């Protein structure tokens, strides 16, 4: 279908997208690491419960931890090998239980049976069994998303990839458009909708052209604006509907899925492959060869960096995920998750490390907030320890933590830190 132009929303910032660094690197498969460590916290909600014991032989794709509760997902072995250790490790995301697997070199796989022409129920079950979570970053279990409580009218596929540096979704859309379309159709079938919209930012015209080929998918050209891929923003610019605070997209009749998630659904349905591998971007000016890679979940960051030729200069910051929302890691001694969309080695010229100066009350943070909040108030009251006032005058509850406010702040104030502190203080109070 011919692409149409999306709406504009008030707010947002325009960081330099830096996608040129890794844009032209075609997807490659990273060779299996000798040992992986797979976290049991791969999605929102409770961590999964390990179902294997130390010493057990596992095959790639075998369930090693079972979902605990509704909002949780199964975790799979990503290489065939022996479970060497199950222990808690404190990493960049806090303390998580990791299952360590040492490769045995057999490369055995254990897939689910492929489905042909599945029914809606079969697709839903398969999404659950394959442990698919939202691969855009939040890691919300897809099985919950495809079973909404209210009827939906449309599926929106998120191809915005508004984070600077990241190009893995771009490569995926360029190389696997057919598969993404198939995956999207399966999800649409599971939801019982026929309308599929894909939103792609205007800086990826080649991807838009790819998706114009399909008759049943409506591409929408999105303005280059961060955060365009935020769920609520994406729904607004593509359909004009506003998702209320504390409401789900299904409440306004839409469901949003990332392109990588659509691809994972395609793999799970047609090939029976559970989610234990994903695309990620290795980029930044401090990495020798920027690449877009297929990486097994649990691969050590060191193995990935080494495969990309190591550091070209000493990085100032190493980020897991995108530069706007990702987590800065202190060492290469970290392991990838289902939700890791990038490894960025940022040189001193790229990474922001300015000392904060006094707040000027310029209000730029409020101007760029895509949720129209008042981050400066949150920071002001949070610094005084008054978290109730911080939440009230900063309207913190609706914050999506996109980081636009801190990006624009001329005084370089740590706004996101204040917002997270406020949110945590309020959570603890409840």
């Amino acid at each position, binding site marked *: 279908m011919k692409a149409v132009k999306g709406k504009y929303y008030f707010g947002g910032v325009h960081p330099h997208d830096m996608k040129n660094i890794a844009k032209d690197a075609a997807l490659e498969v990273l060779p299996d690491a000798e040992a992986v460590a797979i976290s049991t916290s791969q999605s929102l909600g409770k961590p999964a419960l390990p179902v294997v014991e130390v010493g057990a032989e596992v095959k790639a794709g075998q369930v090693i931890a079972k979902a605990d509760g509704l909002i949780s997902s199964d975790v799979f072995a990503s290489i065939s090998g022996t479970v060497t250790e199950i222990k808690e490790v404190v990493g960049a995301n806090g303390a998580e239980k990791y299952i360590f697997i040492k490769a045995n070199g057999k490369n055995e796989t254990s897939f689910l049976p492929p489905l042909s022409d599945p029914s809606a129920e079969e697709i839903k079950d398969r999404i659950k069994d394959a442990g698919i979570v939202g691969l855009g970053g939040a890691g919300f279990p897809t099985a919950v998303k495809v079973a909404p409580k209210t009827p939906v009218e449309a599926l929106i596929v998120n191809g915005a990839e508004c984070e600077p540096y990241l190009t893995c979704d771009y490569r995926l859309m360029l190389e696997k458009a057919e598969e993404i379309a198939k995956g999207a159709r399966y999800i649409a079938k599971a939801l019982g909708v026929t309308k599929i919209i894909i939103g792609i930012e205007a800086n990826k015209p080649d991807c838009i052209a790819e998706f114009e080929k399909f008759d049943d998918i409506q591409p929408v050209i999105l303005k280059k604006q961060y955060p365009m891929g935020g769920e609520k923003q994406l729904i607004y610019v593509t359909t004009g509907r506003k998702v209320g605070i504390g409401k789900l997209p299904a409440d306004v009749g839409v469901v949003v899925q990332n392109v990588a998630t659509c691809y994972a659904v395609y793999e799970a349905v047609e090939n029976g492959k559970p989610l234990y591998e994903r695309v990620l971007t290795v980029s930044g000016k401090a990495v020798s060869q920027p690449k877009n890679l297929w990486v097994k979940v649990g691969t050590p960051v060191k193995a990935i960096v080494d495969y990309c030729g190591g550091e070209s200069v000493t990085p100032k910051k190493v980020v897991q995920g995108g*530069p706007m929302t990702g987590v800065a890691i202190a060492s290469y001694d970290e392991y990838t998750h289902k939700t890791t969309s990038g490894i960025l080695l940022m040189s001193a010229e790229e990474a922001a490390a300015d000392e904060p100066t006094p707040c000027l009350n310029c209000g730029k943070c409020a101007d760029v907030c895509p949720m129209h909040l008042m981050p400066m108030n949150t920071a002001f009251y949070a610094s005084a320890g008054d978290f109730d006032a911080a939440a009230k005058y900063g309207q913190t509850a609706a914050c999506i933590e996109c980081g636009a406010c801190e990006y624009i702040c001329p005084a370089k104030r740590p706004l996101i830190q204040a917002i997270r502190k406020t949110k945590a203080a309020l959570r603890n109070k409840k």
Partner: protein
Amino acid sequence: MDNSIVISTPPHVKSKRTTRGIMIDVAIALLPCAIAGCVFFGWRALIVILTGVLSCVATEFVYYFIANKGFSNKCRDAKQVCVRWLKQFDFTSVVTGLILALILPSSTKWYMVLIGGIFSIAVVKMFFGGTGKNLVNPAAAGRVFMFLSFSIVTSCAIASQFGPIVDSSVVISGATNLGGLLPSKSDPVSNLALLDLFLGTGVAGCIGETCKLAILVGYIYLAVRKVIKWYQPLLFIAVFGLVAWLMGGFFYDKYTLDINLFLPNILSGGVLFGAVFMFTDYVTSPKGTYGQLVYYVAGAILLAVLRYLTKIEVASFVILLMNLFVPLIDKYVIGRPFGYKKVKKQKEDK
């Protein structure tokens, strides 16, 4: 990987804009006014401007040096203290000094400017906590302080380097030409040479306030650089012009509204300068967009009414007055989050 690695909360990229950059932008935007002032008022204006800027910067430095503990230590390694001061110097005092000088008449004595600059920075800004913490606009407070202390309002010079372009122009002595004072019953319009008012030629006034063309250039620069929101000064001017015009029409000319009297109100006095450079001050204006709208409209109405009642230029007073309302506006005028829906209050069944 060595220990030089930095960890922090996201975002890991930030805009290149800094406080210092913004303040330099404001200083650049003020330059046309300063140059026009020097051209119109000669070397006296230059002295006022230089004294204003230097006294503000020097006051900030001295305060930085003597404030807090360890004065004797600071004296010992004064060089390091200077380097540290330069590192954190954000040009706010340069802007304050420039604005303060530009809203003074060129006949102001240099020691008056010096005292005004010290008052602006030390009392109004640094005593309240420095950059970003001052309650009221330092330049406006300094000007009011000088106005009350030295009666500078009576000693205003005419732009002597240039004669009026339109020869029928009347020159009114006083701090500034006020539109409200100008209309005479017989022939209000021909007495007003709009072009002279706009260019500031042959008009009495403060150094930076007379040449409206220079202010316009500064406004365009600020708007293009996105230091200020382009619509804010326009909103202020429009509301002010409308109210002043209506009041002038009703009270001078017995219920006749002459459209020709709309522009003189705006082009006279310090309205334009205040709207572009002083009302838009970040620190002392509301934070949210809606609060800012309230602030500009209320300020414009207040200025128009007070100017009509007092017949003197009260822009600085109005700015101070509005500054004091800002915490209140910030507290009660807050925007609603994206997707906010008003919750209907349900009456509890008894």
